[in-house]
């Protein structure tokens, strides 16, 4: 037991004597734990959106306003040609193109149906999948609002409709730090 005590003493002295090792042991992990969660963020937001608007109607403006107000998208480009927007994607200055065809509003009101076109830079598959899903759900919402302007739904809806309610347990605000901090702790202890 006595020998063990001396050996321990020796090891502690060796560590305490060297300020470099002390810094590595104490300062580095705390800095990493403070910095890494900010960097290690998979959350998809601030997607760069290029809008190609051939319609220039009231509805197209409302839709663009709704998309940019969501907070997930930043409108980086508003042009009249798809080529231009594609060029933006090639230069990494846009992630998603939303193309609004000519007479979008007219078709929606008169023909009961209008089309929108999305082109997504899918090199990062997760980003592309989530980003396009966000955009589609915003478009869905917009669609619902438009519908409400034109028709009054009866109390019992005439069309079959399944309503999906989703909830996120254990991390209701979808904060990525909750997910990353345990991982970083594991990493730091191993190192």
């Amino acid at each position: 037991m006595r020998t063990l005590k001396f050996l321990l003493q020796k090891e502690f002295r060796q560590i305490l004597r060297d300020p470099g090792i002390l810094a590595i042991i104490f300062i580095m992990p705390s800095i990493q734990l403070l910095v890494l969660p900010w960097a290690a963020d998979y959350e998809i937001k601030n997607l760069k959106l290029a809008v190609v608007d051939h319609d220039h109607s009231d509805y197209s403006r409302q839709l663009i306003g709704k998309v940019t107000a969501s907070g997930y998208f930043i409108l980086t480009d508003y042009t009249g040609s798809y080529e231009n927007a594609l060029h933006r994607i090639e230069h990494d200055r846009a992630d998603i193109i939303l193309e609004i065809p000519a007479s979008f509003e007219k078709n929606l009101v008169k023909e009961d149906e209008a089309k929108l076109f999305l082109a997504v830079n899918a090199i990062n598959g997760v980003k592309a999948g989530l980003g396009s899903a966000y955009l589609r759900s915003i478009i869905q919402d917009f669609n619902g609002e438009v519908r409400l302007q034109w028709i009054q739904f009866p109390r019992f809806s005439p069309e079959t409709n399944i309503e999906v309610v989703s909830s996120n347990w254990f991390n209701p605000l979808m904060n990525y730090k909750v997910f990353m901090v345990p991982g970083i702790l594991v990493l730091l202890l191993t190192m």
Partner: protein
Amino acid sequence: MKAETTHIGGSDSKASFTGFGIKQFFSFVRKEFYHIYRDKRTMFILLGMPIAQIVIFGFALTNEVKNSDIAVFDQSKDAATSSLIAEFDASRYFEVREYISSYGQIERAFKKGEIKLAVVLPLHFNEDLQHFNKAQVQLIADASDPNVASTLTNYATAIIMDYQQRITNDRKLPYTITTEMKMLYNPELKGAYNFVPGVMAMVLLLVCTMMTAITIVKEKEMGTMEVMLVSPMKPLMIVIAKAVPYTILSAINIASILLLSVFVLGVPIKGSLGLLAFESILFTLVSLSLGLLISSRAESQQIAMFISLVALFLPTVMLSGFMFPVENMPWPLRLISNVVPAKWYYTIVRSVMIKGTGLATIWKETLILTGMMLFFLTIAIKSFKIRLA
């Protein structure tokens, strides 16, 4: 070996004045190759690393969601719910793992980590659907990994919407906006398209920077640096001779990564191979000069290794944009990411290899890398000490 090289250097009197003899230079390069070749284990690691990384990233570290376990809490157990559940089971994204019978069990299943998503179908589902034309489905996702949670919720919603479309016989509601979507460059949303460029940057940086950083310090520690410094070779030539074998090693590594990505992972090279090779060599040179800079400052192998790990490897993984999206980070980190060489190289490889664009789109990144190389190389050579302490 060292004695022999100095001897060769000394025998050619003309070269000894200039220090630029080609023969002497190649003897030094040969010496460096011996160093690498003799240490079989290191050589194996250096050549095997890209293969290991491709395999790890390709097959283990995918964010793609498939066959996620779900639990179903079916309270009404009627025709509609059972066909909806069958729909879930048939999709390649979900695997119904459990049928549960109370709300409490949902939480228990989540806590045991058995399931990622729970689908709750309320009582009288079919009745509500038939009589009131309206029914509810609740999806509960384990959001401790937020992106997986939203992806699963999206897929599940899509399945339910498909089902609804089918039972309404594709009757369209009035005033419907349909969205057509096109996934550019990577229509199957494969993870490989994103990480192959990242792995290339990481491997090059590890091989070039860390190994060059260590090798000069190793000479210092072993005391052989003195012998080299008194040899007729100019310090610059000594340094360049050290860099040559690692450049060749990185070229082999790039080739093996590209072959693996094309033939194993199915990621094509869309742009020009020559441009890709040129940019890779440029990045190799940046990493080498960084390694030389570290080695001329560091005193021991341990410190050289530590600096290259903390100051280079970590920022490369975190800030180059291949693991984590840089645009979401707070501005100090975004600012720092601009001085990480791998970020620029990663952008270049993505553009050339996957988007298939030419020099016109990446001239800015190329200029930045060239500038970085010149900057690091100048400092490295300036701070290369001819005298040892």
